[in-house]
């Protein structure tokens, strides 16, 4: 946004850039690794932007996301070994007694492209048009956005309004599953014959940015979003527990889950509502000390799945003789979605003879559970000349799911992950 006059949020550029405008290129490679041989991801990314003329600027973004590893399928650890069918329905995998069932057929490469076009309308107002496209083997996302910003009070106050629309298509391996129907043994007809599906995501955001002093800037945003359409995770299941044994239902408690004759495994494909409305309040403050800079944000989120969350984020940039050190701390806490359930009970929730379920929605996805995430990070940045910078950061993420009162051994395990990222920026 380095348009013809110094706008409030302008990107400061080194002096030598003054004469000719060039591509400002930021490149990065991120390594993400979860403990217990869960997900491993490598993400190269490039972000490049340049002025087209005094009033227009273009930005392009390309991110590749290569994932391997295993992800929880939703079922809990049990005192007995558990056997599951892969999404394709062709084979089985087994989780030993006491182990959290992970689907290790999980692997994916995602390519995401985005572009923004900033246009100055006049000296105090501007509009940004954005587009994005991402593709992975079972998922495609296509989106467009527009943000209008206008400065008031000698550019000390800026109002923003943005609208974004996304259309996502999902084509899961084996087809979309029939909700709250059992996963079946290979060889039986799968409950996964559904067609591909889609959802639309609409987001609206208004915000105000205010300069408080030469050293302090604050921002306040309100966002409202709506998602309509297919929102299930087609690979996630919920265990049906036999309350007499505390183990996944078997033929002894239910004729329906007599796997040998019906093929039905005691795991039902999850079911979520088709609509989700959310509200977000976001506050940010940036303050410049004599040399150092502190960047703090707080977000309050709520939706009509009854998820509420608080996110605190703090970065402190400590300037050194050569480069800077930037510690980072993030704390996140959420409450469970109303239909999140540890499992479904035979008898109470599921009819032992017919398999009929007396609820419309159920998911045991840990991401909809009550949880806390703590992130600690450190970044070191080293300017290389006037137009270039090298930086490296490491972060440790630790997520704890609060299952509530559940039988010992069935707790959702903590998730520990590390991030290592290397950045290099230059003018081109």
């Amino acid at each position: 946004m380095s348009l013809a006059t110094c706008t409030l949020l302008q990107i400061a550029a080194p002096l030598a850039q003054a004469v000719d405008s060039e591509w400002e290129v930021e490149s990065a490679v991120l390594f993400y690794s979860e403990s217990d041989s869960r997900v491993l991801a490598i993400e190269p990314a490039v972000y490049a932007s340049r002025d087209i003329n005094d009033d227009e600027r273009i930005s392009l973004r390309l991110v590749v996301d290569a994932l391997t590893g295993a992800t929880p399928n939703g079922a809990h650890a049990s005192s007995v070994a558990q056997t599951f069918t892969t999404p394709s329905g062709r084979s089985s995998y087994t989780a030993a007694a006491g182990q959290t069932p992970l689907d290790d057929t999980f692997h994916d490469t995602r390519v995401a492209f985005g572009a923004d076009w900033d246009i100055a309308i006049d000296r105090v107002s501007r509009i940004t048009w954005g587009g994005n496209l991402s593709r992975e083997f079972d998922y495609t996302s296509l989106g467009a956005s527009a943000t209008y910003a206008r400065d008031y009070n000698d550019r000390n106050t800026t109002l923003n309004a943005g609208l974004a629309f996304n259309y996502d298509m999902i084509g899961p391996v084996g087809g979309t599953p029939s909700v709250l129907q059992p996963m079946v043994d290979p060889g039986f007809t799968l409950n996964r014959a559904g067609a591909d599906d889609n959802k639309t995501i609409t987001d609206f955001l208004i915000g105000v940015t205010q300069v408080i002093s030469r050293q302090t800037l604050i921002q306040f945003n309100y966002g409202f979003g709506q998602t309509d359409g297919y929102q299930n995770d087609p690979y996630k299941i919920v265990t049906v527990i036999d309350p007499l044994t505390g183990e996944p239902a078997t033929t002894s408690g239910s004729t329906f889950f007599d796997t040998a004759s019906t093929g039905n495994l005691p795991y039902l494909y999850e079911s979520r509502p088709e609509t989700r409305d959310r509200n977000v309040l976001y506050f940010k403050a940036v303050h410049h000390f004599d040399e150092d800079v502190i960047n703090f944000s707080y977000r309050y989120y709520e939706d009509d799945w009854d998820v509420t969350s608080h996110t605190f984020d703090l970065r402190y940039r400590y300037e050194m003789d050569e480069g800077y050190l930037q510690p980072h701390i993030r704390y996140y806490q959420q409450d469970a979605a109303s239909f999140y359930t540890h499992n479904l009970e035979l008898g109470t929730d599921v009819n032992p003879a017919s398999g009929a379920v007396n609820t419309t929605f159920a998911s045991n996805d840990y991401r909809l559970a009550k949880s806390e995430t703590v992130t600690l990070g450190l970044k070191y940045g080293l300017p290389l000349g006037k137009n270039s910078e090298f930086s490296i950061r490491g972060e440790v993420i630790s997520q704890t799911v609060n299952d509530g009162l559940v039988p010992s051994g069935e707790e959702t395990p903590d998730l520990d992950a590390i991030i290592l990222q290397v950045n290099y920026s230059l003018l081109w």
Partner: protein
Amino acid sequence: MFRACLYSTKNKSVRVMAIMFMLISIPACSSMGIQPWERDLLAKDSMQLVPDYLDNFMDEHIYFSKEASSGGQGVGGGGCGCN
């Protein structure tokens, strides 16, 4: 186990309050602020609201795939099948 997903009045009041805050802030802030030539610090990369574009983008993506919340900073950016 499941409570009806009615659109709660709590949501509406949050929205009304937020919008009122924005509208009030324009005149209320008119006495705050600095002169155009005092923007030297605000012009620095490190003083931008999002100083590290790619760090922020990657983080948003990671937390979107691990948590139930999203949004707040701006609109656009795109979806993924990770949640």
